[in-house]
Protein backbone atom coordinates (compact mmCIF):
# COMPACT_ATOMS: atom_id res chain seq x y z
CA UNK A 1 0.00 0.00 0.00
CA UNK A 2 1.15 3.44 -0.82
CA UNK A 3 2.19 5.20 2.38
CA UNK A 4 -0.28 7.85 3.31
CA UNK A 5 -3.24 6.49 1.35
CA UNK A 6 -6.15 5.25 3.41
CA UNK A 7 -8.86 2.91 2.15
CA UNK A 8 -12.28 4.52 1.98
CA UNK A 9 -13.77 2.28 4.62
CA UNK A 10 -11.47 3.87 7.18
CA UNK A 11 -12.37 7.42 6.30
CA UNK A 12 -14.31 9.22 8.97
CA UNK A 13 -13.75 6.49 11.48
CA UNK A 14 -11.10 6.52 14.08
CA UNK A 15 -7.94 8.20 12.95
CA UNK A 16 -5.95 5.62 11.05
CA UNK A 17 -2.34 5.52 12.17
CA UNK A 18 0.55 3.46 10.93
CA UNK A 19 2.51 2.04 13.82
CA UNK A 20 5.34 -0.41 14.20
CA UNK A 21 5.07 -3.03 16.91
CA UNK A 22 7.32 -5.84 18.04
CA UNK A 23 5.66 -9.17 18.83
CA UNK A 24 7.23 -11.95 20.82
CA UNK A 25 5.52 -15.31 20.56
CA UNK A 26 6.09 -17.82 23.34
CA UNK A 27 7.16 -21.38 22.39
CA UNK A 28 3.60 -22.77 22.50
CA UNK A 29 2.53 -20.38 19.74
CA UNK A 30 5.45 -21.05 17.43
CA UNK A 31 3.46 -23.21 15.05
CA UNK A 32 0.28 -21.14 15.19
CA UNK A 33 -0.69 -18.81 12.33
CA UNK A 34 -1.06 -15.92 14.71
CA UNK A 35 -0.55 -13.20 12.11
CA UNK A 36 -3.29 -14.64 9.86
CA UNK A 37 -5.72 -14.10 12.68
CA UNK A 38 -4.70 -10.48 12.93
CA UNK A 39 -5.96 -10.08 9.40
CA UNK A 40 -8.96 -12.39 9.68
CA UNK A 41 -10.25 -11.50 13.11
CA UNK A 42 -9.25 -7.90 13.36
CA UNK A 43 -9.23 -6.77 9.74
CA UNK A 44 -5.80 -5.29 10.13
CA UNK A 45 -3.45 -4.66 7.27
CA UNK A 46 0.14 -5.16 8.18
CA UNK A 47 3.58 -5.43 6.71
CA UNK A 48 6.04 -7.92 8.21
CA UNK A 49 9.28 -5.98 8.54
CA UNK A 50 11.22 -8.75 10.16
CA UNK A 51 10.66 -12.24 11.45
CA UNK A 52 12.98 -14.58 13.25
CA UNK A 53 13.01 -17.44 15.73
CA UNK A 54 15.59 -17.40 18.46
CA UNK A 55 15.74 -19.04 21.90
CA UNK A 56 12.49 -20.83 21.11
CA UNK A 57 10.59 -17.60 20.64
CA UNK A 58 9.38 -16.04 17.43
CA UNK A 59 9.82 -12.34 17.03
CA UNK A 60 8.13 -10.17 14.46
CA UNK A 61 8.31 -6.50 13.71
CA UNK A 62 5.03 -5.48 12.12
CA UNK A 63 3.92 -2.25 10.63
CA UNK A 64 0.20 -2.11 11.36
CA UNK A 65 -2.30 -0.13 9.42
CA UNK A 66 -5.89 0.16 10.36
CA UNK A 67 -8.40 2.10 12.25
CA UNK A 68 -7.75 2.67 15.87
CA UNK A 69 -10.43 0.33 17.22
CA UNK A 70 -9.32 -2.61 15.07
CA UNK A 71 -5.81 -2.16 16.26
CA UNK A 72 -6.89 -2.01 19.88
CA UNK A 73 -8.80 -5.24 19.51
CA UNK A 74 -5.85 -6.86 17.77
CA UNK A 75 -3.53 -5.90 20.57
CA UNK A 76 -6.01 -7.23 23.09
CA UNK A 77 -6.29 -10.46 21.16
CA UNK A 78 -2.52 -10.83 21.01
CA UNK A 79 -2.16 -10.09 24.66
CA UNK A 80 -4.88 -12.62 25.50
CA UNK A 81 -3.17 -15.47 23.74
CA UNK A 82 0.14 -14.67 25.36
CA UNK A 83 1.96 -12.64 22.75
CA UNK A 84 4.15 -9.93 24.18
CA UNK A 85 3.52 -6.72 22.26
CA UNK A 86 5.71 -3.68 22.44
CA UNK A 87 5.62 -0.52 20.38
CA UNK A 88 8.74 0.11 18.34
CA UNK A 89 10.17 3.54 18.97
CA UNK A 90 13.05 3.35 16.53
CA UNK A 91 13.94 0.86 13.83
CA UNK A 92 17.60 1.81 13.65
CA UNK A 93 19.82 3.95 15.76
CA UNK A 94 22.33 6.31 14.20
CA UNK A 95 25.34 7.40 16.19
CA UNK A 96 25.92 10.88 14.82
CA UNK A 97 29.27 11.08 16.60
CA UNK A 98 30.48 8.16 14.50
CA UNK A 99 28.77 9.13 11.25
CA UNK A 100 31.17 10.61 8.70
CA UNK A 101 28.32 12.05 6.61
CA UNK A 102 29.24 9.94 3.58
CA UNK A 103 26.30 8.57 1.66
CA UNK A 104 26.70 4.79 1.63
CA UNK A 105 23.33 4.44 3.40
CA UNK A 106 21.55 6.71 0.92
CA UNK A 107 22.50 4.56 -2.03
CA UNK A 108 21.61 1.24 -0.46
CA UNK A 109 18.34 1.92 1.41
CA UNK A 110 15.50 0.23 -0.51
CA UNK A 111 12.91 2.44 1.17
CA UNK A 112 14.73 5.73 0.48
CA UNK A 113 14.79 6.65 4.17
CA UNK A 114 18.08 8.53 4.02
CA UNK A 115 18.53 11.91 2.45
CA UNK A 116 20.81 14.89 2.64
CA UNK A 117 20.09 18.16 4.30
CA UNK A 118 20.26 20.56 1.35
CA UNK A 119 22.05 23.19 3.44
CA UNK A 120 24.56 21.27 5.54
CA UNK A 121 24.88 18.13 3.40
CA UNK A 122 24.54 16.04 6.52
CA UNK A 123 22.64 12.77 6.45
CA UNK A 124 19.05 12.73 7.67
CA UNK A 125 16.91 9.69 8.38
CA UNK A 126 13.16 9.31 7.97
CA UNK A 127 12.00 6.78 10.53
CA UNK A 128 8.46 6.56 9.13
CA UNK A 129 9.31 4.86 5.88
CA UNK A 130 11.96 2.56 7.39
CA UNK A 131 11.23 -1.11 6.77
CA UNK A 132 13.88 -2.25 9.26
CA UNK A 133 15.82 -4.33 6.73
CA UNK A 134 19.15 -3.42 8.28
CA UNK A 135 20.94 -2.94 4.92
CA UNK A 136 22.20 0.48 5.98
CA UNK A 137 23.87 -0.95 9.06
CA UNK A 138 25.67 -3.58 6.99
CA UNK A 139 27.15 -1.09 4.56
CA UNK A 140 27.86 1.87 6.87
CA UNK A 141 31.65 2.29 6.61
CA UNK A 142 32.20 3.74 10.12
CA UNK A 143 29.53 1.38 11.53
CA UNK A 144 27.53 4.30 12.86
CA UNK A 145 24.17 2.58 12.32
CA UNK A 146 22.82 -0.18 14.55
CA UNK A 147 19.75 -2.11 13.37
CA UNK A 148 18.17 -1.94 16.78
CA UNK A 149 14.47 -2.07 17.14
CA UNK A 150 14.47 0.12 20.18
CA UNK A 151 11.42 -0.82 22.15
CA UNK A 152 9.57 1.84 24.05
CA UNK A 153 10.03 1.54 27.79
CA UNK A 154 6.28 1.57 28.37
CA UNK A 155 3.38 0.95 26.06
CA UNK A 156 2.54 4.61 26.01
CA UNK A 157 4.98 5.91 23.46
CA UNK A 158 3.81 8.78 21.33
CA UNK A 159 1.63 7.80 18.42
CA UNK A 160 1.62 4.19 19.44
CA UNK A 161 -1.41 2.41 20.69
CA UNK A 162 -1.41 0.67 24.01
CA UNK A 163 -2.79 -2.53 25.35
CA UNK A 164 -5.86 -1.80 27.47
CA UNK A 165 -5.01 -2.74 31.05
CA UNK A 166 -8.42 -4.24 31.81
CA UNK A 167 -9.37 -5.85 28.50
CA UNK A 168 -6.29 -7.96 28.17
CA UNK A 169 -5.34 -10.65 30.60
CA UNK A 170 -1.81 -11.32 31.64
CA UNK A 171 -0.05 -14.16 29.92
CA UNK A 172 0.53 -16.04 33.15
CA UNK A 173 -3.23 -16.35 33.64
CA UNK A 174 -3.72 -18.19 30.40
CA UNK A 175 -3.96 -21.90 30.08
CA UNK A 176 -1.93 -23.41 27.33
CA UNK A 177 -4.89 -24.14 25.09
CA UNK A 178 -7.38 -21.65 26.34
CA UNK A 179 -9.38 -20.00 23.59
CA UNK A 180 -8.97 -16.30 23.11
CA UNK A 181 -11.96 -14.25 24.13
CA UNK A 182 -14.00 -12.18 21.77
CA UNK A 183 -14.39 -9.52 24.40
CA UNK A 184 -12.94 -6.13 23.81
CA UNK A 185 -13.35 -6.18 20.03
CA UNK A 186 -15.07 -2.84 19.39
CA UNK A 187 -15.61 -3.47 15.70
CA UNK A 188 -17.14 -6.88 16.39
CA UNK A 189 -14.99 -8.20 13.60
CA UNK A 190 -14.31 -11.35 15.55
CA UNK A 191 -18.02 -12.15 15.71
CA UNK A 192 -17.61 -13.48 12.19
CA UNK A 193 -15.14 -16.02 13.51
CA UNK A 194 -16.64 -18.09 16.25
CA UNK A 195 -13.34 -19.48 17.30
CA UNK A 196 -13.94 -22.81 15.60
CA UNK A 197 -11.19 -22.06 13.18
CA UNK A 198 -8.78 -20.98 15.83
CA UNK A 199 -6.69 -24.00 16.66
CA UNK A 200 -5.50 -22.91 20.04
Amino acid at each position, binding site marked *: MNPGTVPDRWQGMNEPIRTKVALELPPYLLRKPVLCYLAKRCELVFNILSANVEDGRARFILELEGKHSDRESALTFLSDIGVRVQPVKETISMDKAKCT*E*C*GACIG*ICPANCFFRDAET*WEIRFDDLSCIACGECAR*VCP*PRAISPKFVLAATGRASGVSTIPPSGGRRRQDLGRRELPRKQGCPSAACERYDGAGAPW
Partner: protein
Amino acid sequence: MPKTVGEINQRIRDGQAVVVTAEEMIDIVREKGAEKAADEVDVVTTGTFGPMCSSGAFINVGHSKPRIKFGGGRATLNGVEAYAGLAAVDLYVGATALPLDDPRNKVFPGEFAYGGGHVIQDLVSRKDVVLRAQAYGTDCYPRRELETVINLDDINEAVLVNPRNCYQNYNVAVNTSSKTIYTYMGVLKPDLGNANYCSAGQLSPLLNDPFLRTVGIGTRIFLGGGVGYVYWQGTQHNPNVERTKGGVPRAPAGTLAVAGDLKQMDPEFLVGTSFLGYGATLTVGLGIPIPVLDAEVAQYTAVSDCDIVTKIVDYATSYPQRTPENLGEVDYATLRSGLIEIGGKKVPTASLSSYAKARKIALTLKKWIQEGRFLLSEPVQPLPSVGSNVEFKPLRERSPGVSRR
Protein backbone atom coordinates in the same frame (compact mmCIF):
# COMPACT_ATOMS: atom_id res chain seq x y z
CA MET B 1 48.95 42.25 -9.81
CA PRO B 2 50.71 38.93 -9.16
CA LYS B 3 51.51 38.10 -5.53
CA THR B 4 54.12 35.85 -3.97
CA VAL B 5 53.63 33.30 -1.21
CA GLY B 6 55.93 35.46 0.92
CA GLU B 7 53.69 38.50 0.49
CA ILE B 8 50.60 36.46 1.31
CA ASN B 9 52.30 35.10 4.45
CA GLN B 10 53.12 38.63 5.54
CA ARG B 11 49.44 39.54 5.18
CA ILE B 12 48.53 36.44 7.22
CA ARG B 13 50.98 37.51 9.97
CA ASP B 14 49.51 41.03 9.89
CA GLY B 15 46.03 39.58 10.22
CA GLN B 16 45.03 41.16 6.91
CA ALA B 17 44.87 38.15 4.62
CA VAL B 18 41.58 37.57 2.84
CA VAL B 19 40.83 33.86 3.05
CA VAL B 20 37.82 32.19 1.46
CA THR B 21 36.82 28.58 0.84
CA ALA B 22 36.72 27.11 -2.66
CA GLU B 23 32.93 27.17 -2.42
CA GLU B 24 32.88 30.88 -1.58
CA MET B 25 35.37 31.63 -4.35
CA ILE B 26 32.93 30.46 -7.04
CA ASP B 27 30.57 33.40 -6.51
CA ILE B 28 33.38 35.89 -5.94
CA VAL B 29 34.93 35.17 -9.33
CA ARG B 30 31.52 35.02 -10.99
CA GLU B 31 30.65 38.49 -9.67
CA LYS B 32 33.97 40.27 -9.86
CA GLY B 33 35.93 38.40 -12.47
CA ALA B 34 39.21 36.56 -12.00
CA GLU B 35 41.43 39.67 -12.14
CA LYS B 36 39.63 41.52 -9.37
CA ALA B 37 39.17 38.34 -7.33
CA ALA B 38 42.92 37.70 -7.52
CA ASP B 39 43.55 41.22 -6.20
CA GLU B 40 41.12 40.83 -3.33
CA VAL B 41 41.55 37.21 -2.24
CA ASP B 42 44.84 35.90 -0.87
CA VAL B 43 44.08 32.28 -0.06
CA VAL B 44 41.45 29.75 -1.14
CA THR B 45 41.02 26.77 1.18
CA THR B 46 39.89 23.37 -0.03
CA GLY B 47 38.95 20.11 1.66
CA THR B 48 38.16 16.47 1.10
CA PHE B 49 37.17 13.63 3.39
CA GLY B 50 37.08 10.15 1.98
CA PRO B 51 38.36 6.60 2.27
CA MET B 52 42.06 6.56 1.38
CA CYS B 53 43.37 3.00 1.39
CA SER B 54 46.98 3.95 0.81
CA SER B 55 47.30 5.30 4.33
CA GLY B 56 49.32 4.12 7.27
CA ALA B 57 51.47 5.14 10.17
CA PHE B 58 55.09 4.63 11.14
CA ILE B 59 55.52 4.29 14.86
CA ASN B 60 58.51 3.81 17.14
CA VAL B 61 57.37 2.20 20.37
CA GLY B 62 60.61 2.63 22.35
CA HIS B 63 63.03 -0.07 23.49
CA SER B 64 61.95 -2.77 25.91
CA LYS B 65 64.23 -4.07 28.65
CA PRO B 66 65.79 -6.43 27.63
CA ARG B 67 65.72 -5.27 24.05
CA ILE B 68 63.79 -6.89 21.20
CA LYS B 69 64.17 -6.49 17.43
CA PHE B 70 60.88 -6.80 15.55
CA GLY B 71 62.63 -6.91 12.15
CA GLY B 72 62.51 -10.41 10.68
CA GLY B 73 59.87 -11.33 13.20
CA ARG B 74 56.22 -10.44 13.54
CA ALA B 75 54.22 -7.77 15.28
CA THR B 76 50.54 -7.07 15.70
CA LEU B 77 48.63 -4.06 17.03
CA ASN B 78 45.26 -5.03 18.50
CA GLY B 79 45.71 -8.23 16.53
CA VAL B 80 46.23 -6.40 13.23
CA GLU B 81 49.44 -7.27 11.40
CA ALA B 82 51.98 -4.47 11.37
CA TYR B 83 54.97 -4.42 9.03
CA ALA B 84 58.06 -5.21 11.07
CA GLY B 85 60.72 -5.29 8.36
CA LEU B 86 62.37 -2.17 9.75
CA ALA B 87 64.85 -1.33 12.48
CA ALA B 88 64.41 -2.78 15.99
CA VAL B 89 61.26 -1.11 17.35
CA ASP B 90 59.89 0.66 14.28
CA LEU B 91 56.59 -0.52 12.82
CA TYR B 92 54.34 0.45 9.95
CA VAL B 93 50.66 -0.21 10.27
CA GLY B 94 48.80 0.02 6.99
CA ALA B 95 45.14 1.06 6.80
CA THR B 96 44.03 -2.10 5.02
CA ALA B 97 45.91 -4.57 7.27
CA LEU B 98 43.68 -7.12 9.00
CA PRO B 99 43.89 -9.30 12.09
CA LEU B 100 45.53 -12.65 11.36
CA ASP B 101 42.33 -14.48 12.28
CA ASP B 102 39.94 -12.24 10.35
CA PRO B 103 37.84 -14.52 8.10
CA ARG B 104 38.31 -12.09 5.19
CA ASN B 105 35.84 -12.99 2.46
CA LYS B 106 35.58 -16.65 3.43
CA VAL B 107 32.05 -15.93 4.50
CA PHE B 108 31.05 -13.59 1.71
CA PRO B 109 30.67 -10.66 1.95
CA GLY B 110 33.21 -10.22 4.73
CA GLU B 111 32.58 -7.59 7.37
CA PHE B 112 36.12 -6.34 7.99
CA ALA B 113 34.97 -4.77 11.22
CA TYR B 114 38.49 -3.92 12.43
CA GLY B 115 41.70 -3.25 10.53
CA GLY B 116 44.75 -1.02 10.35
CA GLY B 117 42.64 2.11 9.83
CA HIS B 118 40.83 1.37 13.09
CA VAL B 119 44.18 0.86 14.87
CA ILE B 120 45.27 4.31 13.68
CA GLN B 121 41.99 5.86 14.83
CA ASP B 122 42.34 4.14 18.23
CA LEU B 123 45.90 5.43 18.56
CA VAL B 124 44.83 8.99 17.72
CA SER B 125 41.91 8.65 20.16
CA ARG B 126 44.52 7.93 22.87
CA LYS B 127 43.11 4.44 23.44
CA ASP B 128 45.50 1.78 24.69
CA VAL B 129 46.50 -0.58 21.89
CA VAL B 130 47.83 -4.09 22.48
CA LEU B 131 51.24 -4.72 20.92
CA ARG B 132 52.36 -8.32 20.51
CA ALA B 133 55.67 -9.24 18.90
CA GLN B 134 57.71 -12.33 18.21
CA ALA B 135 61.38 -12.08 17.31
CA TYR B 136 64.20 -14.54 16.68
CA GLY B 137 66.56 -13.03 19.25
CA THR B 138 70.14 -11.87 18.77
CA ASP B 139 73.04 -11.15 21.09
CA CYS B 140 72.16 -7.45 21.11
CA TYR B 141 68.38 -7.94 21.00
CA PRO B 142 67.89 -11.10 23.06
CA ARG B 143 64.18 -10.89 23.73
CA ARG B 144 61.92 -13.12 21.64
CA GLU B 145 58.45 -12.22 22.81
CA LEU B 146 56.66 -9.10 23.87
CA GLU B 147 53.10 -8.34 24.91
CA THR B 148 52.22 -4.91 26.22
CA VAL B 149 49.80 -2.07 25.74
CA ILE B 150 50.97 1.13 24.13
CA ASN B 151 49.45 4.57 24.00
CA LEU B 152 50.13 7.34 21.50
CA ASP B 153 51.27 9.64 24.30
CA ASP B 154 53.90 7.16 25.49
CA ILE B 155 55.54 6.04 22.26
CA ASN B 156 58.30 8.01 20.55
CA GLU B 157 57.25 8.93 17.03
CA ALA B 158 53.98 8.34 15.25
CA VAL B 159 53.81 9.65 11.72
CA LEU B 160 50.88 9.29 9.38
CA VAL B 161 52.37 8.46 5.98
CA ASN B 162 50.09 8.11 2.99
CA PRO B 163 51.85 7.21 -0.25
CA ARG B 164 48.73 8.00 -2.28
CA ASN B 165 45.70 10.07 -1.49
CA CYS B 166 43.79 13.20 -2.43
CA TYR B 167 42.91 11.88 -5.89
CA GLN B 168 42.26 14.55 -8.48
CA ASN B 169 38.82 13.37 -9.60
CA TYR B 170 37.52 9.82 -9.39
CA ASN B 171 35.26 7.34 -11.17
CA VAL B 172 31.55 6.95 -10.64
CA ALA B 173 30.99 3.29 -9.87
CA VAL B 174 28.00 1.29 -11.11
CA ASN B 175 27.10 -2.36 -11.55
CA THR B 176 25.56 -3.61 -14.79
CA SER B 177 25.55 -7.26 -13.74
CA SER B 178 22.55 -9.09 -12.32
CA LYS B 179 23.96 -9.57 -8.83
CA THR B 180 25.03 -7.23 -6.03
CA ILE B 181 28.75 -6.52 -5.95
CA TYR B 182 30.83 -5.42 -2.97
CA THR B 183 33.56 -2.94 -3.88
CA TYR B 184 35.78 -0.22 -2.45
CA MET B 185 33.19 2.10 -3.99
CA GLY B 186 30.57 0.60 -1.68
CA VAL B 187 27.84 -1.93 -2.30
CA LEU B 188 26.59 -1.66 -5.86
CA LYS B 189 23.14 -3.00 -6.55
CA PRO B 190 22.50 -5.04 -9.70
CA ASP B 191 21.20 -3.65 -13.00
CA LEU B 192 22.43 -0.10 -12.36
CA GLY B 193 20.62 -0.02 -9.02
CA ASN B 194 22.80 2.78 -7.67
CA ALA B 195 25.84 4.87 -8.56
CA ASN B 196 28.53 5.80 -6.04
CA TYR B 197 31.03 8.60 -6.50
CA CYS B 198 33.89 9.76 -4.30
CA SER B 199 35.12 13.31 -4.66
CA ALA B 200 34.37 16.60 -2.98
CA GLY B 201 34.10 18.09 -6.49
CA GLN B 202 34.33 21.88 -6.32
CA LEU B 203 35.87 21.67 -2.81
CA SER B 204 38.39 18.97 -3.71
CA PRO B 205 41.99 20.22 -3.36
CA LEU B 206 43.57 19.15 -6.64
CA LEU B 207 40.51 20.02 -8.73
CA ASN B 208 41.10 23.62 -7.62
CA ASP B 209 44.69 23.51 -8.84
CA PRO B 210 44.32 21.33 -11.93
CA PHE B 211 47.88 21.83 -13.25
CA LEU B 212 49.48 21.71 -9.77
CA ARG B 213 50.78 25.26 -10.05
CA THR B 214 50.84 25.89 -6.31
CA VAL B 215 50.87 22.42 -4.73
CA GLY B 216 54.23 20.69 -4.64
CA ILE B 217 56.78 18.99 -2.45
CA GLY B 218 56.82 20.71 0.92
CA THR B 219 53.32 22.19 0.73
CA ARG B 220 51.89 22.53 4.24
CA ILE B 221 48.38 21.10 4.44
CA PHE B 222 45.53 20.16 6.78
CA LEU B 223 45.92 16.44 7.41
CA GLY B 224 43.76 14.36 9.70
CA GLY B 225 42.78 17.35 11.82
CA GLY B 226 46.37 18.50 12.23
CA VAL B 227 49.16 19.84 10.07
CA GLY B 228 50.89 17.71 7.45
CA TYR B 229 53.03 18.09 4.36
CA VAL B 230 53.10 16.92 0.78
CA TYR B 231 56.30 14.88 0.44
CA TRP B 232 56.02 13.62 -3.14
CA GLN B 233 53.55 12.99 -5.90
CA GLY B 234 51.32 10.11 -4.90
CA THR B 235 51.70 6.67 -6.42
CA GLN B 236 49.80 6.26 -9.69
CA HIS B 237 50.12 10.04 -10.22
CA ASN B 238 48.83 10.50 -13.75
CA PRO B 239 48.70 14.15 -14.94
CA ASN B 240 48.54 13.30 -18.64
CA VAL B 241 44.84 12.53 -18.86
CA GLU B 242 42.14 14.06 -21.02
CA ARG B 243 41.00 17.45 -19.67
CA THR B 244 38.10 19.86 -20.02
CA LYS B 245 38.52 23.30 -21.59
CA GLY B 246 39.05 24.65 -18.08
CA GLY B 247 41.93 22.21 -17.57
CA VAL B 248 40.09 19.89 -15.18
CA PRO B 249 40.97 16.20 -15.60
CA ARG B 250 38.03 14.15 -16.91
CA ALA B 251 39.23 11.02 -15.08
CA PRO B 252 41.35 10.12 -12.02
CA ALA B 253 44.63 12.03 -12.46
CA GLY B 254 47.01 13.61 -9.97
CA THR B 255 47.62 12.18 -6.49
CA LEU B 256 49.64 13.26 -3.47
CA ALA B 257 51.94 11.52 -1.03
CA VAL B 258 51.53 13.16 2.36
CA ALA B 259 52.82 12.81 5.90
CA GLY B 260 52.26 14.43 9.26
CA ASP B 261 52.71 13.99 13.00
CA LEU B 262 49.93 11.67 14.13
CA LYS B 263 50.14 13.01 17.69
CA GLN B 264 48.56 16.34 16.76
CA MET B 265 45.78 14.85 14.65
CA ASP B 266 42.13 14.38 15.55
CA PRO B 267 40.07 11.16 15.38
CA GLU B 268 37.21 13.14 13.85
CA PHE B 269 39.29 13.38 10.68
CA LEU B 270 40.96 9.94 10.78
CA VAL B 271 38.25 7.33 10.89
CA GLY B 272 38.71 3.58 10.58
CA THR B 273 36.09 2.35 8.14
CA SER B 274 34.86 -1.01 6.87
CA PHE B 275 33.68 -1.76 3.36
CA LEU B 276 31.45 -4.81 3.23
CA GLY B 277 33.01 -7.55 1.13
CA TYR B 278 36.02 -5.38 0.36
CA GLY B 279 38.08 -4.59 3.43
CA ALA B 280 39.08 -2.15 6.12
CA THR B 281 40.55 1.25 5.43
CA LEU B 282 41.10 4.73 6.82
CA THR B 283 38.87 7.67 5.94
CA VAL B 284 41.09 10.74 5.91
CA GLY B 285 40.38 14.44 6.06
CA LEU B 286 42.73 16.58 3.99
CA GLY B 287 42.71 20.24 3.01
CA ILE B 288 45.09 22.34 0.97
CA PRO B 289 45.37 26.13 1.02
CA ILE B 290 45.88 27.59 -2.43
CA PRO B 291 47.71 30.94 -2.60
CA VAL B 292 45.92 33.15 -5.12
CA LEU B 293 49.05 34.28 -6.93
CA ASP B 294 47.33 35.70 -10.00
CA ALA B 295 44.14 35.72 -12.06
CA GLU B 296 44.86 32.29 -13.51
CA VAL B 297 44.98 30.69 -10.06
CA ALA B 298 41.82 32.62 -9.11
CA GLN B 299 40.06 31.26 -12.18
CA TYR B 300 41.10 27.69 -11.36
CA THR B 301 39.88 27.97 -7.76
CA ALA B 302 36.48 29.15 -9.02
CA VAL B 303 35.79 25.76 -10.56
CA SER B 304 32.27 24.60 -9.76
CA ASP B 305 30.58 21.21 -9.75
CA CYS B 306 29.04 21.76 -13.18
CA ASP B 307 32.52 22.29 -14.68
CA ILE B 308 33.88 19.00 -13.37
CA VAL B 309 33.07 15.82 -15.25
CA THR B 310 34.04 12.24 -14.57
CA LYS B 311 33.54 8.82 -16.08
CA ILE B 312 30.93 6.26 -15.15
CA VAL B 313 32.66 2.90 -14.81
CA ASP B 314 31.12 -0.54 -14.55
CA TYR B 315 32.66 -2.24 -11.51
CA ALA B 316 31.18 -5.59 -12.50
CA THR B 317 33.25 -5.91 -15.68
CA SER B 318 35.38 -2.96 -16.88
CA TYR B 319 37.09 -2.16 -13.61
CA PRO B 320 38.04 -5.68 -12.44
CA GLN B 321 39.00 -6.79 -15.96
CA ARG B 322 40.81 -3.51 -16.66
CA THR B 323 39.05 -2.89 -19.94
CA PRO B 324 38.97 0.70 -21.16
CA GLU B 325 35.27 1.27 -21.90
CA ASN B 326 33.01 3.43 -19.76
CA LEU B 327 29.32 4.22 -19.60
CA GLY B 328 29.66 7.91 -20.33
CA GLU B 329 30.49 11.08 -18.46
CA VAL B 330 28.60 13.04 -15.85
CA ASP B 331 29.25 16.29 -14.00
CA TYR B 332 29.32 16.67 -10.23
CA ALA B 333 26.35 19.03 -10.09
CA THR B 334 24.23 16.25 -11.58
CA LEU B 335 25.84 13.65 -9.31
CA ARG B 336 25.05 15.76 -6.27
CA SER B 337 21.43 16.21 -7.38
CA GLY B 338 20.94 12.57 -6.33
CA LEU B 339 19.91 11.16 -9.69
CA ILE B 340 21.81 10.56 -12.92
CA GLU B 341 20.73 9.00 -16.17
CA ILE B 342 22.66 6.09 -17.65
CA GLY B 343 21.44 4.77 -20.99
CA GLY B 344 17.95 6.10 -20.34
CA LYS B 345 17.74 4.68 -16.83
CA LYS B 346 17.48 6.97 -13.82
CA VAL B 347 20.02 5.86 -11.23
CA PRO B 348 20.20 7.21 -7.67
CA THR B 349 23.62 8.47 -6.62
CA ALA B 350 25.45 8.56 -3.32
CA SER B 351 28.85 9.84 -2.32
CA LEU B 352 31.42 7.95 -0.28
CA SER B 353 33.31 11.16 0.24
CA SER B 354 31.68 13.47 2.75
CA TYR B 355 30.86 16.91 1.40
CA ALA B 356 29.80 18.11 4.87
CA LYS B 357 33.19 17.19 6.33
CA ALA B 358 35.06 18.56 3.29
CA ARG B 359 33.35 21.88 3.94
CA LYS B 360 34.23 21.69 7.62
CA ILE B 361 37.88 21.09 6.72
CA ALA B 362 37.98 24.05 4.29
CA LEU B 363 36.38 26.25 6.96
CA THR B 364 38.78 25.02 9.67
CA LEU B 365 41.78 25.72 7.48
CA LYS B 366 40.35 29.16 6.67
CA LYS B 367 40.05 29.87 10.40
CA TRP B 368 43.61 28.70 11.12
CA ILE B 369 44.98 31.01 8.43
CA GLN B 370 42.83 33.95 9.51
CA GLU B 371 44.08 33.51 13.07
CA GLY B 372 47.67 33.48 11.83
CA ARG B 373 48.23 29.94 13.10
CA PHE B 374 48.91 28.46 9.68
CA LEU B 375 51.29 29.94 7.12
CA LEU B 376 51.52 28.86 3.50
CA SER B 377 54.63 27.22 2.15
CA GLU B 378 56.17 27.51 -1.27
CA PRO B 379 56.87 24.13 -2.87
CA VAL B 380 60.49 23.01 -2.66
CA GLN B 381 59.93 21.33 -6.00
CA PRO B 382 56.86 21.17 -8.25
CA LEU B 383 55.07 17.90 -8.89
CA PRO B 384 55.01 16.41 -12.40
CA SER B 385 52.22 18.05 -14.35
CA VAL B 386 50.96 18.01 -17.92
CA GLY B 387 53.79 17.38 -20.37
CA SER B 388 55.95 15.50 -17.87
CA ASN B 389 57.03 12.03 -18.88
CA VAL B 390 55.07 10.43 -16.04
CA GLU B 391 53.19 7.42 -17.29
CA PHE B 392 50.64 5.35 -15.39
CA LYS B 393 51.72 1.89 -16.39
CA PRO B 394 49.79 -1.35 -16.05
CA LEU B 395 51.54 -4.48 -14.85
CA ARG B 396 52.72 -6.57 -17.75
CA GLU B 397 53.11 -10.04 -16.36
CA ARG B 398 55.86 -12.27 -17.68
CA SER B 399 57.69 -15.40 -16.61
CA PRO B 400 61.33 -15.39 -15.56
CA GLY B 401 63.57 -15.38 -18.58
CA VAL B 402 60.93 -13.94 -20.90
CA SER B 403 62.15 -10.78 -22.61
CA ARG B 404 60.70 -7.41 -21.51
CA ARG B 405 59.58 -6.74 -25.06
